[in-house]
């Protein structure tokens, strides 16, 4: 659609602007404020310059959390994206079974995140959980509260359980939009299943896939509740991801300065990545003629 130029449109945007500015700008300013100040208590602050940033950049704790976070996000992306696509390729296209699958698949997406954590906390326990009990019954030593690997595997499987459906639903919607004629042409061209996927399906769902990857990366990078409920960040701090660490610092220890500096760098990383993705996506859109 050709948009008309109209500066008065700003009035329509105003409510959104005010709300988001209030919710975003003011708190961010507070954070920036804290990040460049230090306090000895009694609400007295003095200028500390970039000191907190330097401390943070030098802090092992932060780098460790970042490392764990990157590892976590990478792993779950590598599982969820292919798995989601695979599920989407196998979903019924229409009729009763399509609705049935859609409804059941969407269920994990609407469970409050703490309940997701609770479900897996229970499920994985050795005494009362189906998973934990069965694992030990068949001889695998599985205890997510004590064992580093068990904790990681539990948290990863939980995230896959929780979010793969999102990728699947997005991919499914993308696949639905491919006209039948393409599949028919592929049959006539005697193309095998893999080639159909590579040359027809994958290109056509590239747009939604990018969105799925962006969303999953972002959300996994900010993950807090689910792992917190299951492992509390443990054992030790083996599953302490960035958000968990930050909240511990800010709300737990009230280390305002470091927390603020941390927040800003955290936010900047996400902004950078989302900018990259956004540019890629809009270019894909343009290329497809939107």
């Amino acid at each position: 659609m050709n948009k008309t130029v109209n500066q008065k449109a700003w009035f329509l945007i105003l409510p959104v602007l005010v709300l988001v500015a209030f919710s975003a700008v003011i708190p961010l300013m507070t954070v920036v404020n804290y990040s460049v100040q230090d306090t000895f208590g009694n609400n007295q602050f003095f200028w500390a310059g970039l000191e907190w940033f330097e401390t943070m950049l030098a802090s092992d704790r932060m780098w460790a959390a970042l490392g764990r976070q990157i590892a976590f996000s990478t792993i779950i992306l590598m599982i969820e994206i292919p798995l989601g696509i695979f599920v989407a390729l196998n979903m019924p296209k229409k009729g009763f079974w399509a609705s049935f699958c859609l409804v059941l698949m969407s269920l994990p997406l609407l469970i409050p995140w703490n309940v997701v954590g609770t479900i897996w906390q229970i499920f994985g326990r050795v005494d009362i959980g189906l998973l934990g009990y069965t694992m030990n019954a068949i001889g695998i030593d599985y205890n997510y509260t004590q064992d580093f690997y068990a904790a990681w595997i539990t948290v990863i499987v939980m995230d896959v359980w929780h979010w793969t459906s999102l990728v699947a639903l997005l991919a499914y919607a993308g696949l639905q939009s491919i006209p039948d004629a393409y599949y028919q042409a592929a049959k006539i061209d005697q193309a095998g299943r893999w080639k159909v996927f590579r040359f027809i399906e994958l290109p056509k769902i590239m747009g939604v896939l990018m969105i799925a990857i962006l969303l999953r990366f972002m959300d996994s990078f900010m993950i807090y509740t689910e792992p917190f409920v299951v492992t509390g960040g443990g054992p030790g701090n083996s599953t302490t991801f960035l958000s968990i660490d930050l909240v511990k610092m800010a709300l737990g220890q009230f280390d305002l300065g470091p927390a603020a500096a941390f927040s800003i760098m955290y936010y900047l990383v996400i902004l950078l990545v989302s900018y990259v993705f956004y540019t890629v996506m809009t270019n894909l859109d343009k290329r497809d003629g939107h």
Partner: protein
Amino acid sequence: MAKITLQNLAHSYLPNPTREEDYALKSMNHDWVDGEAYALLGSSGCGKSTLLNIISGLLHPSEGRILFDDKDVTMAPTTQRNIAQVFQFPVVYDTMTVRDNLAFPLRNRGSDPAYIKERVQQIAAMIGMEDTLDRKARGLTADAKQKISLGRGMVREDVNALLFDEPLTVIDPHMKWELRTQLKSLHHEFGHTMIYVTHDQTEALTFADKVVVMYDGRVVQMGTPQQLFETPEHTFVGYFIGSPGMNVLDAEVSGDTAVIAGTQIALGKGFGTLTGKVELGVRPEFTSLKSGDVGLPVTIKRVEDVGRHKIVRTDFEGHEINVIAGEGESISPDMNRVVFDPAGVNIYSDSWRVSPQAT
């Protein structure tokens, strides 16, 4: 290239068809001669796409058989039938270059790369796309993409038939002519069996050696454009072909005279006594306006000057009769009669043409 035979072929989309209306394609027996260009003509919903999909194997008929060169392929999947199909909108593999698009079917069969390269070059020359061979297919125009679709279909030398499902739908009008011409010359050069589905009679009549007209799931006539014009086997063929189409009037026929609303018309041929719904069909090209008292009484409603001829719309007791007059003929208001040339008159019983009895 192959001869295609339809034996008692019928198709219903319903699981348990009982009445005739349940069938999208009613029982038919036809041969499509090897190497001919056919147009499959009919209005929307008449079953032509269904028939095309049965021939290509994208649909399995619920009854009857289809044979390629006397081999039963009714249940054979598309991949085994060696046909090529060009769809209504261009289907190209966007991520590949034009070259890769054309090479795709051959690569899927594992053909020799040197052979593929040569063949792709040949086909590209045929469709006039040699200089765009290494461009990505994505950004090309609709007609270029349709040419790629066509080329991809022809790249296999042993292709049995080329099927086209209204391929010029998305093409700009001025490109339609060029593409049609190219198709025709390809047919002359290589002699593939071609079946071209369309609802546009101009496309059908200019492209095909034989036109197959379909109506309501039935093939009502298969013939040359001239046959369709002069002796339409079904009133629908009369309506559909020609612009304007055939005039059809209710009549009573006995012997060699027809009576239409009291007026007698000499037919020049004997038809015996006819039962059922009897109609007389005559094309506007075989009618003329006269004054006097011979012929059907009509009132002239409108004269449309189309340039090389005139179309006179007249009214006969509530029915419209169209008359075509030469551009030099003058139409005067006292012309109140329409006369038919017996050579162009056809008699129909229950919509099907009745052959005149040998005298």
